[in-house]
Structures are given as C-alpha cells and as structure tokens.
C-alpha cells in the first residue's frame, strides 16, 4: 500500500548468534521517580542509583517525573547530547508512556528508545508489607534488566496505516442514538440494533425523572432523526457475528435476523394485520422506528393472506437470516443494560401474579404498552396498594446478587410511586429502601416532592414477599428506624432489580479485544480521565454498558464518545506498533506462513515475506521457524536474554512473562494494593507466543527459580495455541527441573492473578530450596521428584 511508510530500519538485520550477548555502549539515562513518596517511601531509590555505578549510565532521581520540571530535566539532557536513550522507573507505562515519548520526540530522540519500568504498581504498591531489602533488590534487578534491554534494542518508527473513515455504533438505545447522531455530520455511521426497533430501554419508559416529561415525546424525534440522517445506515435485528482486521481497519460481519417484511417497501398501511387470522403480523408499536410491520413466525401458519393483500409487495414469508460485511475504522459500544432476573431471590417468589420488575411496570405505561397505558393488575383492575422493593439483587456481596449499586432505582421508584398517586390520589404507594440515594442535580428536590405527595417510605430491605391465593402479596420487613418487624398486604409489588450488562456484552467485547471490569461492564481506559475510551484505541463506549446511569449521563457519554471517535478518525492515520517480525534467514519451508493466524506471511520466490499491516506482532511465527530465522524487532531472543541476565544477576526471582492484557490486571492489583511476593519479576511481551525454549532456558540458567507465562488476551487465535506452546516449552526446558506454569488471566481477574503469583512464588521457592539442599547433599537420595 502506497500510503504506508515502511519502518525506517536503522540497522541491517543480521542473524544473531545465540551464544554471545553483546551490548554496544550507548548513552543511557536512568530517571527514577519518587512519585511524591508513593515510590520512595518503600523503595530506597538512592541505593538503586548506587547499584548502577558500574553500568556506564547517568542516573537522576526526581520528585515527580511527570511534572514539567521532571520532563524538562530529561528533555534538556537529551538536547544537550548527554543521553540518547532513556530508562524511566516510575508508575505504569499505561499511564505516562505516551507523554514521555512525546517529550523525547520533541527533544530529538527516537521515542521507542524511551521505556518505562513499572516500580510503583509492580513494586512499591504491592510489596510495601515486605521487608525493604527484598523490594529494593527487586527494583534493582528490574532497572538493571531495563538498562540492559535499552542497550540492546534498536530505534524503530511506527508504521502508519490509513483509517477507514466509518464508524460502527452497536446498540440503538439513547446512548447509541446520541453517539450516532453526533458523529454522523462529519463521518459515516452504521448503527446496528438487536431489537426490531430503536430506542432501547428508554422507549419502554413512562415519564422520565427528574422532570417527568414523557419518554417517547423526547425520544421519538431523535429516533426519526437517525432514520432520516443521510450519514447513518441503520440495521435493526442485527448483531455482530465476527470481527476481523485491526484497529482503524476492521472488517466486521453482521448477522441480520429476518423480519419477513421489507422495511423499505412497507408503508404501515396495516392491510396485512386486518387480513391475518392468527395475529402474527404486527407493528411493534405506533411510534416504532423503523415504521414497518413484522411477523412473529411462531404465530404464523403461512396462509399467505398478508402476502396477497400487501399493496407494496413487502411481505416475504421465505426470508432467511442474512450475513453482510462492513468495513469500519472505529466501533462505539452502546449495548446498555438489562435487569437481572430476580427469580434467584428465593424469598421474593418472583414471578407471581402482580409481582413485577420495575421494567415491566414502566412498559405498561410507555409507548410499548399492551394495556393502553393503564396500570393494572392481572385481573385488569387498578392496584390500590403498590409496594416498591429496592436493591433487589444489588449491593449483595455474597455472590448471589451483584455488588454494585444500580444507581437509578432510588429515583425511578419514586417516579413510579408518584405516577401511582397521580393516577389515583387515595392509592397507597410504599417504597422499601436501604439508603435513599438521591445525589445529583434536582434529585433531592424530587425526593422531597415525592414525600409531599404522601408516598410512604420504609427504611428496611424487604425480607419476604408471599403471594396469596387472591392475587395480593404479603410483604414482611423490619422498619429499621423503629427496630420493629412489620407485615403489609399489597395489590402489586414492584421489584427494582440489579441492572447488569446486556447479554452478549462479553462476546462483543472479546471480539474487539476490549476488557471488562469484574462487574461485567466495560472497563474504561482510565476510570476518571479517559471514561469513554477503552484499552483498544479504536473502540469506545457510552451509556449503561459502562455501568448503570440515567438518561442525562447516557447522553453525556454518547456525546463524549462521539467526540473521541471524531478525534480518532480525524487524524486519518493510525500508528501501529513497529515491533514486527524480521525475516533474517529463510529456506522457504513455509512453516511460518502456515502458522500465522492472521495471514500476514506469504511465500514469494521461495522466501517468506511479511505484510506488516496485517501482522499483529503476535510472534507465533518466531518459534514456528525451524531454522530460527525470524525475530520480533526489539523482542529478539538475544534482547530478551540480555534483559533476563541483568535482571537476575544479583538476586534470583520468579520470572513472569506477561502480555498487555494481563499486564493491565497487574496494574489494577497495584491500584488496589493487593500484595504479592516480591520475588515476582514481570517481563512485558507483546504476546507470550514470541517465546521459545531458548529464552525460557536462558531464564532458568540465569537463576530464575520458576517461570510463568501469563496471558490475558481473549483472542482465540492465540489462546487456542497456548496449551501447545506450554507443552512444547515444558518439554524443551525439562532439564532444569524447575517449575514452569501457564495461566490465563483476564484484565478483571486481578485477585486471581495475585493469588496465583503468591502460590507459584512459594512453590518455586520451596522447590529451589529443596534442590539446593539436595545439591549440598544434606538430604538422602530417597526423595526423587
């Protein structure tokens, strides 16, 4: 492709001789950050600096390296020619690597020659309960390893790839609608929605708090705008089937379920419905967008009456599921939420007549109403006594429900209670709550107003709901303000269920390489500072897929995501990491071509050639080449060995090779101060598949007491091969008789990660001890492992 620049490779690739490790003298500057005590309270940075004395590097310690003073120091050292390569010891590279590299670039250095060693999330925050000596020794090892690595790597220039100027928005709720409309004036948008109509949960709402305006009145114009916008292509009954390609250039397969009525032809005249004798063909609801009838096949007996009567020839009873493929540069995820099914709460006896969820309650009074917007019991009469039961499945730390607060129930239940009182002034409405959470502009006033309307508030989580023969429901509770148990009979009980990510969120996120939090919602790139970005630079999120929230906040996030998408697409180009394979020697066997999961290699004139833009840098080709002719730039066998050697020289440890997704889990462990053994030393890799027996054997030889491979990616093309990789490595490193382990840890599973590290570190330690005892002959030969 003409628009793509090949990496400006500096050194002519040469096959490295595995036997000798050479580090050319470079002008390396090491900068250590105290992080205002966050690091220096635990790590003795002075002694770390002293340990580098023999290394021929300049060392500098700063209070805050990320501050302008800290950055200026590095910048001026580069400009003065004192240094040309930079090793930073600070917080996680996920936070400031881009900042520092930007600075280095301005100062005239190659940004890839600046790397960060994480001594905060991976040291001071997670080992502060251990002895200072062991933490210091770990940090010294890490920095020494980083210096050796820095001496061995080559300057690279990122590849540029042209972006596809089109966005896929997944989910047609208010968040997705807003995102699509805000992008569409500048960039083309494809909006897909799983349901046969737009609007998400909002179209199923009655009035909306805190202003009590009608939901469909404010939403319908937006839905129509989406439908009419020339920049938006809308597909309903559509989901993502497959994602191929890479950020900025995705090829996405969509799956369209059949509607049996052609949306473009149908004019909603309703002639079909009048002829249909089973009621199978219908308009979802009067304001539905798109305005087109549809068939419920479970009711249809294929009599064909609708086909004949339709004046526009719109009905096709033989319609099948269809597949289409689109090409997009960015994806905005707005798949919203769903209510948890409360039937797991045994004491509430859901489902039962007149025992509904709040979503079902809203439905009855919304545009989608099947009761003519009347609130009614199963027998059709009005419920004179209605109870609202809050926190049904939320705020539960036992594993049965969800830990999180669902945020909107406190307010919407008051809205619903107001509606009951409005429909019948002498009706009773009771709200059973634990804490009335009404933080937010205009919400306390809303609470106050609801109290004035005579709604009865009870502070206490409902203990039991017992459905009676006559359709009423007995509610038992403790009024915690009085410390007294109470029982009350209601005509209708409304459960406010925990709001959870909608089904399919995980599958979609996995396809896009976007991690989820341990609550199942999408993990933001930064909780506070990057709230609508994800770890995938081309994937964004908005609305309740990021956690429960109200319409106002969903709209705000939709607008933010749109801005972020436009900013991303506006650059026209995407930088892709230059750490790609180099083919140093090739006998034309084609093993790498077969091994590459992304079709990035091909044989041309009997030699393997790489398409750098298709390549993800996964490294599978490295161990696949039988003559060791392939290396990943800056992650070559020798570069990794140089790092390992220096890292383990002064003190042994457990070497943990980790990919970027699992690295993020380690960062979260750090933020949560989850302690684990300071013997653990991470080596960050683009993927664990670059490893082969050479590197792992070297780790053991240089003193690793154990080696772990931790993979976090959910890309099946990689994980499906991990078991084989592990078995191969196990075989190839058997002679060392030291523990080797593989584990898959997704970003959210940081607790599992630290548990695992602790267990492994102690096992490796025990094994090493046993071995050394044995070597010393202290133990008789009886104990054979």
């Amino acid at each position, binding site marked *: 492709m003409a628009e793509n620049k090949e990496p400006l490779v500096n050194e002519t690739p040469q096959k490295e001789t595995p036997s000798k490790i050479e580090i050319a003298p470079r002008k390396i500057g090491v900068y250590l950050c105290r992080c205002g005590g966050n690091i220096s309270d635990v790590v003795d940075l002075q002694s770390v600096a002293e340990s580098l004395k023999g290394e021929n590097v300049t060392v500098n310690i700063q209070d805050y390296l990320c501050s302008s003073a800290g950055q200026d120091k590095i910048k001026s050292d580069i400009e003065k020619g004192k240094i040309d390569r930079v090793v930073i010891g600070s917080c996680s590279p996920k936070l400031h690597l881009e900042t520092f590299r930007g600075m280095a670039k301005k100062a005239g250095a190659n940004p890839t020659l600046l790397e960060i060693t994480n001594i905060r999330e991976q040291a001071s925050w997670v080992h502060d309960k251990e002895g200072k000596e062991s933490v210091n020794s770990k940090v010294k090892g890490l920095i020494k390893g980083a210096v050796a690595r820095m001496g061995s790597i080559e300057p690279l220039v990122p590849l540029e790839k042209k972006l596809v100027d089109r966005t896929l928005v997944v989910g047609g709720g208010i968040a997705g609608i807003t995102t699509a409309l805000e992008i569409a004036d500048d960039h083309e948008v494809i909006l897909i929605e799983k349901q046969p109509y737009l609007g998400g949960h909002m179209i199923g709402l009655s009035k909306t708090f805190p202003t009590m305006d009608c939901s469909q009145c404010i939403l319908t114009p937006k839905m129509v705008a989406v439908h009419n916008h020339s920049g938006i292509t809308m597909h309903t009954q559509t989901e993502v089937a497959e994602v191929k390609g890479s950020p900025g250039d995705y090829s996405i397969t969509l799956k369209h379920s059949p509607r049996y009525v052609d949306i473009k032809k149908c004019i909603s005249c309703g002639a079909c419905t009048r002829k249909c004798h089973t009621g199978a063909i219908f308009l979802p609801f009067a304001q539905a967008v798109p305005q087109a009838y549809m068939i419920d096949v479970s009711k249809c007996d294929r009599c064909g009456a609708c086909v004949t009567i339709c004046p526009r020839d719109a009905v096709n009873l033989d319609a099948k599921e269809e597949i289409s493929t689109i090409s997009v540069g960015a994806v905005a995820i707005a798949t919203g939420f769903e209510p948890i099914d409360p039937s797991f709460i045994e*004491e509430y006896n859901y489902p039962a007549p007149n025992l509904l969820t709040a979503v079902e309650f809203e439905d009855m009074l919304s545009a989608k109403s099947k009761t003519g917007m009347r609130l009614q019991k199963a027998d059709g009469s009005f419920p004179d006594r209605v109870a609202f039961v809050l*926190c049904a499945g939320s*705020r*539960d*730390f*036992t594993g049965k*429900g969800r830990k999180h607060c669902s945020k909107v129930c406190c307010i919407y239940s008051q809205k619903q209670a107001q509606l009951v009182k409005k429909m019948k002034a002498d009706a009773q409405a009771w709200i059973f709550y*634990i*804490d009335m959470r009404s933080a937010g502009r205009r919400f306390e006033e809303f609470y106050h107003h609801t109290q004035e309307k005579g709604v009865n508030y009870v*502070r*206490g*989580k*409902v*203990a*039991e709901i017992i459905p009676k023969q006559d359709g009423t429901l007995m509610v*038992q*509770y*403790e*009024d*915690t303000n009085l*410390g*007294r*148990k109470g029982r009350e009979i209601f005509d209708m009980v409304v459960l406010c269920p925990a709001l959870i990510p909608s089904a399919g969120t995980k599958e979609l996120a996995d396809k896009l390489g976007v991690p989820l939090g341990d609550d199942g919602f999408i993990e933001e790139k930064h909780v506070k500072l990057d709230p609508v970005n994800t770890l995938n630079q081309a994937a964004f999120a908005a609305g309740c897929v990021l956690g429960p929230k109200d319409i106002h906040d969903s709209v705000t996030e939709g607008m933010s995501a749109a801005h972020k998408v436009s900013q991303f697409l506006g650059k026209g180009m995407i930088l892709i990491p230059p750490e790609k394979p180099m083919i140093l020697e090739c006998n034309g066997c084609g093993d790498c071509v077969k091994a590459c999961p992304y079709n990035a290699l091909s044989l041309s004139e009997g030699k393997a050639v790489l398409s750098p833009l298709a390549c993800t840098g996964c490294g599978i080709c490295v161990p696949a080449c039988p003559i060791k002719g392939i290396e990943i730039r800056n992650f070559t066998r020798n570069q990794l060995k140089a790092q390992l050697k220096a890292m383990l020289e002064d003190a042994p440890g457990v070497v943990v090779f980790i990919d970027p997704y699992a690295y993020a889990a380690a960062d979260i462990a750090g933020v949560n101060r989850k302690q684990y053994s300071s013997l653990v030393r991470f080596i960050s890799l683009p993927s664990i598949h670059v490893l082969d027996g050479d590197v792992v054997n070297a780790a053991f030889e240089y003193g690793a007491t154990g080696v772990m491979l931790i993979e976090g990616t959910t890309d099946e093309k990689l994980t499906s091969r*991990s*078991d084989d990789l*592990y*078995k191969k490595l196990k075989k190839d490193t058997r002679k060392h008789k030291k523990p080797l*382990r*593989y*584990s*898959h840890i997704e970003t959210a599973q940081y607790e*599992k990660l630290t*548990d*695992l590290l*602790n*267990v*492994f570190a*102690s096992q490796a330690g025990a094994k090493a001890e046993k071995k050394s005892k044995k070597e010393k002959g202290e133990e008789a030969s009886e104990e054979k492992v």
Partner: protein
Amino acid sequence: MQKETIIPESRDNAFRDLIIKSPGGENLLTCMQCGICAGSCPVSHEMDHTPRQMVRMIQLGLKKEVLNSNTIWICTTCFSCSVRCPRGIYPTELMETLKPIAIKEGIKNRNAKFDNIFADVVKKNGRASEFLLISKYSISEPGMIAQAPFGLELISKGKLPLSIDKMDDTRELDSIFSLSEKTGSEEKTKIKEKPPEIKENNSDSQEAEK
C-alpha cells in the same frame, strides 16, 4: 426502657475486635443496616434488640447491652438471617459466640437459666425429659405458674410423659461434660485464626501442568 447516651466509656473496642475475629464476624464491619435479617427472623419481635441492632451494637462495642440482651437466648438458630444477609454476615453464629461470653461474665436472665436447667437434666439422665425440664424451670421462674393449667392439660392428654427416660451407661456423656467444663468457655471464645489467604492453584495452570 431507659436509653443511655453512648459515650466513649460505654464502648469497648476489645470486645468489638474479639467478636469480629470470631466465626461469622469477619464481615461484621460491612453491615449496611438493611434489616433483612430482622425482617426474616421468626422471633425478632420477642427480642429486646433485633439481630440488626445487635450487629450495630457490636460495631460500637456496647458490650454491656449486647451481653445483657435477651436476643442471644431467644435466637432459634434457624439461620434465616444468615442466608439472606447481603453482606455475608452470620448473625446466627454471633449469637453462638455471645452466649458463652455472657455466661462467663456471669450474666443471669431467664433464658440463660433455661439453658442451664436443660443442660443439667441431660447431664443427670443422659436424655432430655420434658417433664423434668418444665417442672424445674417452673419452680425457678415464678411467672410460669400461669402456664400450669396448660401443662396439666398436656399431661392429661398424654402429650407430656411423666416417665423419666435414663441412659444405661452415662460414662461417655460424663466425660464429654467434664471436658466441656474444663475447656468449655475458653474454647468457644478463643479467636479463630483466619485460614491463610493463599487459595489453591488455579485450574488453568493445573490443567496445563498435566
């Protein structure tokens, strides 16, 4: 009922910490006072403090009130509160922890008396006897006289057998009692060590290991 103002002197942090470290107390600090425990409790209306209030009082270290409360004796150990608590607190276990402490502290009330008589009867005969239990308790508890007609009715209908069943050989039982008297209360209140944090190996790696 007179309610004392809570002042620093009424709070006993050592007591609080002891209970937190006892079985079922691990999550005690996370109680959000939701009240599902008390709402579920079949006998909370008989208690002078509901299970929820007990948890709150323990959090504050109100040792005197907690140990003097009839709640710990009224609890039927039905576990309704414990299975429903959204924070994983086990009020039932707390009651079990508090009983021996109350006994050790010499706190006397009706319910403690009942428990003691019950234990006595079992100790002597090796079996429980409803007749002995009721008659002994009635003698020590004057209010029980009002129940006499009901008791007679039960006897007349054969629902309260007068015969006293005895165990043939009570030696084993005796040794249990003497053991419990020796170690009894200490054992109960002894702080249980938390199990070590390290969980078993995760399954992926074990599988891979194979």
